[in-house]
């Protein structure tokens, strides 16, 4: 046993040295790449070790050819990175990009179906916290590496892009996507950052007055779009006091197409008395996915919100 541990430690040391070496070669080759137009992207070295969002080190023996993605946001990123042709299984929730319609579905909302996943013979599984701990452990026991991605803010989306890029050998494309996102965010933020902050309430569902507080993408997007989330005093998704809403008196209310009827919102006690309703500033986001999914499309959501809050800046 002791010998085995020693061997393991040695292996880890080697692995670390190896990955360090890989990093340095990456850095070294980068400038050359930009100068040579037709060079292939840096080939990822396999076996590859990545650290996922749970802080676990996952070893991937060879370049994956069959990917199962258990979160719509991850699926979007894989397609955006150009590795969509390797996706062989997604959840029932996946609806973007349109091609994903033809990919076999491996699970519903209560955690995915382990049998359906195994049937796809994946080389790698991208999971989320909703995927179910037991299910994922049983898949790992079958020798299928599981990488857990769970971005909670935009910086972590970049991190997801980097991890997926590394695994699917699309790091370069990943860098481009991150750059595009950063440019877009900067462009929008530059337009609005010197304008007066607009107070915003985001209504997730009229039934129970649910909102998105601190720590949600929506809260982050509102801030970047030159607004202030009136519900930043609650964490995550929460049922918000209508009294408090009346007191905070938001200038703008944004809702989703599934929150309930906008006509109802405008006639509801409490809501009726907010500046947002009085000045007819109740907006419906075109698509919840672009403001709640940890995908690169989040910048579209940001743009839409910024236009709701500061239409004058986008003329």
């Amino acid at each position, binding site marked *: 046993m002791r010998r085995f541990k020693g061997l393991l430690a040695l292996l880890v040391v080697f692995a670390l040295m190896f990955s360090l070496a890989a990093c340095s070669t990456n850095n070294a080759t980068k400038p050359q790449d930009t100068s040579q137009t037709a060079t292939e992207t840096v080939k990822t070295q396999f076996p590859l070790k990545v650290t996922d969002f749970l802080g676990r080190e996952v070893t991937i023996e060879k370049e994956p050819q069959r990917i199962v993605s258990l979160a719509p946001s991850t699926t979007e990123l894989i397609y955006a990175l150009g590795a969509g042709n390797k996706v062989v299984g997604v959840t*029932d*929730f996946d609806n973007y990009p349109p091609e994903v319609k033809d990919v076999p579905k491996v699970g*519903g*909302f209560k955690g995915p179906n382990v049998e359906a996943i195994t049937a796809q013979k994946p080389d790698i599984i991208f999971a989320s916290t909703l995927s179910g701990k037991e299910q994922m452990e049983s898949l790992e026991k079958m020798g299928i590496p599981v990488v857990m991605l769970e971005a909670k803010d935009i910086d972590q989306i970049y991190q997801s892009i980097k991890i997926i890029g590394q695994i699917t050998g699309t790091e370069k494309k990943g860098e481009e996507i991150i750059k595009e996102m950063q440019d877009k965010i900067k462009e929008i933020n530059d337009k609005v950052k010197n304008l007066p902050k607009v107070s915003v309430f985001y209504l*997730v*569902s*009229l*039934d*129970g*007055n*649910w909102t998105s*507080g601190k720590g949600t993408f929506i809260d982050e997007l509102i801030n970047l779009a030159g607004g202030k989330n009136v*519900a930043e*005093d*609650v964490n995550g998704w*929460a*049922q*918000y*006091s*209508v*009294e*408090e809403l*009346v*007191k905070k*008196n938001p200038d703008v209310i944004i809702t989703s*197409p*599934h*929150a*309930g*009827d906008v*006509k*109802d919102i405008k006639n*509801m*006690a*409490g809501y*009726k*008395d907010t500046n947002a309703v009085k000045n007819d500033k109740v907006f419906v986001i075109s698509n*919840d996915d672009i403001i709640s999914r940890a995908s690169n499309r989040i910048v579209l959501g940001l743009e839409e919100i910024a236009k709701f809050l500061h239409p004058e800046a986008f003329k």
Partner: protein
Amino acid sequence: MGVKKGIYFGTAFSLLVFTMILSISAGAVKIPLQEILNVFLGGGSETSRTIILNLRLPRAIESAIVGMGLSVVGTFFQGLLRNPMADPYVLGVSSGAAFGATIAIILGFGIFGLSFMAFITSLMTVFFVYTISRTGTRVSMTTMLLAGIAISAFMSAIISLMMLLNHDEFSRIVFWTMGGFSLINWNSVVFTTPIIVIGSFVMYVFSRDVNAILTGEEVAEHLGVNTELVKKIILITGSLVTATAVSVGGIIGFVGLIVPHISRLIVGPDNRILVPFSAISGAIFLTFADLLARIILKPMEIPIGIITAAFGGPFFLYLLIKSKQKSEGM
């Protein structure tokens, strides 16, 4: 005896008034007492007026009315179904309402359409349960209880399936079924109060007859009680009251189950006294629960069902243990 009951009623009534005042004065937003008085005298700032008159006041009234209705229904159903576990939802009212609400949400109905749909489907469910349990003019209470359980399970399965097939509306359905009074406005108070108050009163009129039925249906008929008619009236009125409550507050468990028991432990089993006492206790309990739901984690609100179960359950157990000790001591 009479004096003792008088004290119980006096205390309960004062407690109700106190709870209502507390419920109007406390909330997520702090409003000084002076400002509250100003509002009631026609002054106060616009914000405080909205909060007090359009949010807190209708909510306090609605929670009291719903608490009253559910407790009265629970009292009668427990007696009539001869089952201490019977509550207003036992005949499938809640799952029927949830079924209607789910369909309404999927079809994209607004708040009014949703409440109306929940109301109609819950009544249809009870009518269905009632129809299967009827042979000729007689209604079997046992069959009703079992049919109610079966239809609830079936409806819940269909709801889960509908949720599965309509991911987009998933959260709204879940949120609706958690219940609560955050959507209450004066319209809902005006719509529900007459139904629940009149319904409760109609049932109360039959308290003496239900007392007789409790001692045995044959005995009751001997005493000149038309048991089948009484059962029908109580079942239909009770279902109407419950459906009304569900349509505005969602599914609020535990009130109709434990308030009647607690009241029975305090004032005894005579329905003529028990029913009004349950009515007041239910009003206090739910108004207080709603107040807690609003302030415990402010500015966040928590679903009221969590409060009713978390506070009602242990209190009920305490009373059970206490009454057991009492009877053992005697």
